[in-house]
């Protein structure tokens, strides 16, 4: 019997995506594990792997097609010994057949109305296509109860970190997780999980010579999230000057020592660790404002802004407060590399307890960054430059950078934000603590 290939749900909340590229053509033979297509979600491009074997009988959705709903049949595979052309001719009856990946579902008929799982849960438990392979695999490990609650509350499981055995997401991990929007429960249930269309699209007219380019999904997401942040989150900005000489010296020494291991620390790697340590020291800033509650994190997961050709993405260093700087450095290098290829998986860029954005390499002296909700703060790092500086009551030359924290003022008071900035400064200026 011909097998229908459906648009996969690459994250529990994914409802549609762009079929970016076909990697096979009609008539190709495929076997389990072969890459079939590249699918672009709101932030990442993922590879769609074959689960079945056979011959591609027909491609139903052309590459480059946007907004392909999850579950849409995108191609038909003819099984071994089947006539590909016959399969092609008769997709209709096959459509009615129970696709086997949906066998997760419900108990015997009698139970139907009460026990049918929510659609989102079914989708996540379904086909599970493979993206870029990692050690852990890409299955989202979550308990049945966690899956059900996430589906009901519109929570993206991929954005959560599991505390259960083997990183399994359990009910407790959902407590306080931001729902689709931090609205009261009934409203959240009624509203669709995804946010409404960002802006009504009016035709844009201008006489100025121009070119128009359709927004990528990533650009759309950036636009939506930054607008939300600036509209909903009252930002306050606190700036400190931080002397970098000791940190630079330490970095030089560490790099000398780490060279045989092939590790080369960047200043940014050290700042990631410094921010994480500061957040643990000042837990009032390691928080999320979640509607009617305040979530205080016990671990500092730092989202690091990485510029990529299509825009910007924020891979996460999980538990940066407890990781060695060399580990942070290796992880960061690896994540940034894959970010540039668009190969990050959702759990690698969704989540995080605070962000770090560094524009020092562009010579930007100081700037204010936009908070990445539901996080409570973001640290904007300016360029380290030689400045006249008072050291021990005398004018001297020191390498100084300006760092500006943006804080969600609903959750974080000015004094607490100031304490974090102080702690950050103190840690960076006494950098031995970073390697202790």
């Amino acid at each position, binding site marked *: 019997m011909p097998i229908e290939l459906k648009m996969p749900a690459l994250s529990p909340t994914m409802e549609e995506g762009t079929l970016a590229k076909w990697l096979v053509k009609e008539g190709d033979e495929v076997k389990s594990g072969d890459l079939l297509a590249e699918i672009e979600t709101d932030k990442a491009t993922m590879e769609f792997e074959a689960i079945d074997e056979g011959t591609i009988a027909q491609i139903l959705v052309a590459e480059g097609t946007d907004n392909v709903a999850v579950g849409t049949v995108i191609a038909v595979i003819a099984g071994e010994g089947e006539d590909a052309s016959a399969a092609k001719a008769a997709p209709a009856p096959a459509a009615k057949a129970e696709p086997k990946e949906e066998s997760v579902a419900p*108990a015997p008929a009698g*139970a139907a109305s009460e*026990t049918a799982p929510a659609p989102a849960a079914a989708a996540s438990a379904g086909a599970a296509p493979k993206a870029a392979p990692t050690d852990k695999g890409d299955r989202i490990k979550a308990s*049945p*109860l966690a899956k*059900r*609650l996430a589906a009901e509350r519109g929570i993206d499981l991929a954005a959560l970190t599991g*505390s259960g055995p083997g990183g399994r997401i*359990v*009910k407790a991990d959902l407590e306080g997780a931001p729902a689709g929007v931090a609205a009261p429960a009934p409203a959240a249930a009624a509203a669709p999980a995804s946010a409404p269309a960002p802006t009504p699209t009016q035709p844009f007219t201008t006489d100025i010579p121009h070119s128009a380019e359709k927004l990528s999904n990533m650009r759309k997401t950036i636009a939506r999230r930054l607008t939300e942040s600036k509209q909903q989150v009252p930002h306050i900005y606190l700036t400190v000057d931080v002397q970098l000489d000791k940190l630079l010296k330490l970095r030089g020494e560490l790099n000398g020592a780490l060279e045989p291991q092939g590790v080369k620390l960047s200043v940014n790697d050290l700042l990631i660790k410094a921010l994480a340590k500061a957040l643990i020291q000042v837990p009032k800033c390691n928080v999320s404002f979640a509607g009617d509650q305040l979530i205080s994190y016990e671990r500092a997961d730092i989202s690091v802004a990485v510029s990529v050709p299509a825009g910007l993405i924020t891979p996460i260093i999980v538990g940066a407060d407890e990781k060695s700087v060399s580990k942070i450095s290796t992880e960061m290098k690896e994540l940034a590399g894959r970010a540039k290829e668009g190969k990050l998986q959702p759990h690698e860029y969704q989540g995080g307890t605070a962000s770090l954005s560094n524009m020092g390499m562009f010579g930007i002296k100081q700037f204010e960054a936009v908070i990445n909700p539901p996080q409570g703060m973001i640290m904007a790092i300016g360029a380290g430059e030689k400045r006249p500086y008072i050291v021990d009551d005398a004018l001297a030359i020191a390498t100084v950078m300006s760092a500006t924290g943006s804080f969600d003022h609903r959750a974080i008071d000015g004094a607490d934000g100031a304490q974090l900035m102080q702690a950050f400064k103190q840690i960076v200026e006494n950098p031995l603590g970073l390697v202790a």
Partner: protein
Amino acid sequence: MAETSYDLIVLGSGPGGYVAAIRAAQLGLKTAIVERELLGGICLNWGCIPTKALLRSAEVYHYMQHAGAYGLKAAEISADLDAVVKRSRGVASQLNKGVAGLMKKHKIAVHMGTGKLTAPGKLEVTGDKGVETLTAKNIIVATGARARDLPFAPADGKRIWTYRHALVPTEMPKKLLVIGSGAIGIEFASFYSDMGADVTVVEMLDRLVPVEDADVSNFLEKQLKKQGMTIMTGAGVEELKATAGGVSAKIKAKDGKVESAEFSHAIVAIGIVPNTENIGLEALGVKTTKGHIDTDAMCRTNVAGLWAIGDVTAPPWLAHKAMHEAVIAAEAIAGGHPHAMDVRNIPGCTYCRPQIASVGLTEAKAKELGYEVKVGNFPFIGNGKAIALGEAEGFTKTVFDAKTGELLGAHMIGAEVTEQIQGYTIGKTAELVEDDFIGTVFPHPTLSETMHEGVLSAYGRPLHI
């Protein structure tokens, strides 16, 4: 000279202590264990295990007396109390040796003697060979607990017993008073009743086994009365005196009347007291609540490097809770990140006849916490295997969160339920929802089918009733 410096010292070798030592040794820690009496602690020398041996004898005796119900004849049936006790001691001794073997296998240094913390990371052990000082970066306190005495009538071991005396009776009580109807009290009541004693159970609260679901308590009371026991709930023993030929008690009944009654023996099972004295906790400033050591989710005390597990810490006071904490503590000490234990997922078992097993919230507690519940209750009479066994008394009750399908609690009473509750416990721990239980195929014919039906009935669709 004995080696005195370790990565980890465990004080106490009960089910918490010896498991902590094994897990730590598996993780490569150089580990020592300190025990003042018997390896294996109360659980396998004076608790869980020897009582199960006694209860097994009582059960076989019960079947012999009811052989006719199965079409069999047994004549001249009698019980030899000494032999029953001897078997129980033999079982305990076998397991005690087993723990010694496990310590040896894992190269855990065993220091026999009484341990006392003298400074953080320092433990003085006073044994037959004198005093030795052991040091370690981490120390786990697993000293357990002992029976609580009645303030006005301390146990004398002759007429007034604690569990410890009740385990090694030299004579069969004719008329037994059991004070307290928790797991320990009820198990001894069940044992001695089946062995032929005339048993009265006095419980201060308004129902038997007060930690269990009220339906279980009520069912148990009916069953025990049917077996011939006298049950007094909402009642208190106001006076208890050993006399020449027994004990005399003044019992205040539910209606407030105080009556005197004579018994041959009394068992006091009104709770436990943690063993926290004379082990140096005060000097180190270890925080306690009602005598039990305060710990966090990883079993750390407020003193750096000092950990505590099992009965010496907060309830529930159960061996398997101690064993699980042991693993958590050992893994955390070895630098791992074990996940914390959820008290609601710790099952409880009582081995009276009929057996009781439960996990999670009672129906009343769930409602009190504001849950909207779906409750299922399936009687054993609807289970083919129960009828074939001649054990058709019992039921399986489930409590689900109506909103989410989370299993909040399960409560079972009847034959072999203690061997079944793990099914619900796995489900609860894995956070399965009603669909998962409903969609599970249970083997037929087994008593465990009542577990399936218990869930089905919560959703209004039991098949066999």
